[in-house]
């Protein structure tokens, strides 16, 4: 059924209006704020690049950037690698269990973010389940401190949260590859690793690229997991820093500037990952 021009405009206008008012205007306001300065704890309209200057030159913020990367990069890589293994199993190996596992993964996708953080905290605490099990099995005498309030704890919980997502995205990509293709490559004498590198990975390259970036961005912008599972040093991410500026310190201009510096660094990661994956033959060279 074709839509008249007028009806089409009527149906799509709520979305346009909403995106304009709730996304475009607020993001523009945030961008404007990043050029304001603070006077008596109130943002004052004006044009100054002091906020950006402070972020780019301070060694403190460089530490934040490095720590953010050291959390987001392992989170993204582990989520995608583990998700790929599970997705591969679902797409090509699982037979009777496939339906069950697929539903289980979709259900886990709806798992509560806060419930996970809370659970990892109780699992890994000094008197938590992991430590009481380890001690009961006499594997360790004293509670292991590294399980909680460390970068490892933050990355573990975040991978746990993102894994169902990466699995389903990669599954949807892998399941569109004809199963015969893998068998054909093997028949023609390719080893398993060669089949993976030359056939499967390039054919799912776009999904790998998207899933890695998605997890990286969300992990870098997470400001709750690092606070509750990270230690003094490892909770110092761009996410927690920005959230702090806008909810506690109330230095909106500085917080806004940090947010846009973070977005700029995201672009560097996008370009870097694209170049890296192209060099490795995982993404086609010509597409823009």
């Amino acid at each position, binding site marked *: *059924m*074709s*839509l008249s*021009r007028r009806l*089409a405009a009527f*149906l*799509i206008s709520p*979305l346009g209006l*909403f*995106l304009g008012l*709730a*996304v475009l205007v*607020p993001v523009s*306001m*945030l961008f*404007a*704020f990043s050029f304001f300065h603070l006077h008596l704890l109130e943002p004052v309209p004006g044009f100054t690049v002091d906020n950006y200057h402070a972020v780019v030159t301070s060694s403190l913020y460089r530490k934040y950037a490095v720590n953010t990367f050291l959390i987001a990069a392992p989170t993204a890589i582990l989520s995608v690698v*583990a998700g790929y*293994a*599970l997705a591969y*199993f679902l797409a090509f*190996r699982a037979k009777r269990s496939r339906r069950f*596992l*697929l539903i*289980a*993964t*979709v*259900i*886990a*996708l*709806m*798992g*509560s*973010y*806060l*419930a*996970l953080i*809370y*659970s*990892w*905290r*109780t*699992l890994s605490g000094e*008197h938590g*389940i992991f430590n009481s099990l380890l001690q009961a099995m006499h594997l360790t005498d004293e509670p292991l401190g590294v399980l909680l309030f460390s970068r490892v704890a933050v990355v573990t919980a975040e991978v*746990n949260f993102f894994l169902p997502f990466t699995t*389903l995205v990669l599954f*949807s990509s892998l399941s569109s590859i004809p199963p015969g293709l893998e068998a054909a490559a093997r028949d023609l004498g390719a080893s398993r690793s060669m089949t993976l590198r030359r056939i499967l990975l390039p054919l799912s390259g776009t999904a790998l690229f998207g899933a890695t*970036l*998605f997890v990286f*961005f*969300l992990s870098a*912008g*997470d400001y*709750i997991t690092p606070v509750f599972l990270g230690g003094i040093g490892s909770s110092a991410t761009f996410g927690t820093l920005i*959230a702090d500026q*806008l*909810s506690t310190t109330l230095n909106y201009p500085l917080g806004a500037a940090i*947010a846009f510096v973070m*977005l700029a660094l995201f672009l560097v990661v996008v370009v870097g990952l694209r170049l890296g994956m192209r060099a490795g033959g995982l993404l086609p060279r010509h597409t823009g």
Partner: protein
Amino acid sequence: MTMRRPRLLTVIAGALVVFIYLPLAVVVVFAFNSGANLSWPPHGVSVRWFSLIFGEEAFRSGLTTSTWAAIATAVVAGVIGTAAAFVMARRPTRVTRWLESGSRLPVMLPPLFIGISLVAAMKTFAIDPSMWTIVAGHVIVTTPFVILIVVSRLRNYDVALEQAARDLGATPRVVLRRITFPLIAPSVLGAMVIAFAISFDEVLITNFTSGTRVTLPLFVLSRLRRTIDPSINAVATILLLVPWFAVALAFVLQRRRSTRQTVDARVEELARAA
């Protein structure tokens, strides 16, 4: 001989599923644990944490706020998204394609960024935090899912059904009511349930848009700042189970045609939406 490697993969896949579900299982198990200690093994079965938590006014009001916010989000995102999906599927132009990718952009951004943008706008225009600012934040992140699901449904069914109805003399209005709507209704309902589920658990944006209003996730967050308290297990279980229950309900409501295939189709649809 060639059996060994697939078996290794089976073990890895099994371990990963256990890894995904272990923390969730722990929360639920300890929510029904009668002891106050959070160490293994649990003591016995009891619902004391649930009765304790339901006795708290702060929890009850959080549950009410979250439920209404999630319902409002599902309705608003469902209406805006479905209307837009019609245009995107049936009358694609440069503008609609532009809007389609534009609507997906907020999902790629960290929710933190959406949250602080809304703070900046609220500060500029002196908008006080309210239920509507909470819902606005949730609609931003849920509408793309509605669009994706409904557009894919509209593109994937046989348009000949509508043409046949027209040829047999049905007016466009009748075609819409008797053919198109019944065909897309399960997808729209499913999309709205997903919007409900996402909204019910949303905390990263809500933290900035709620003001003094406390949703259920914000209630958990404030408890997390204090000590570990076993009653959080009960609240976290509710945070987990309400969205799952909603999704299960949506499946049941569609059971009229629910053969294995439709369930599978829905699962794959969800997977694709993700």
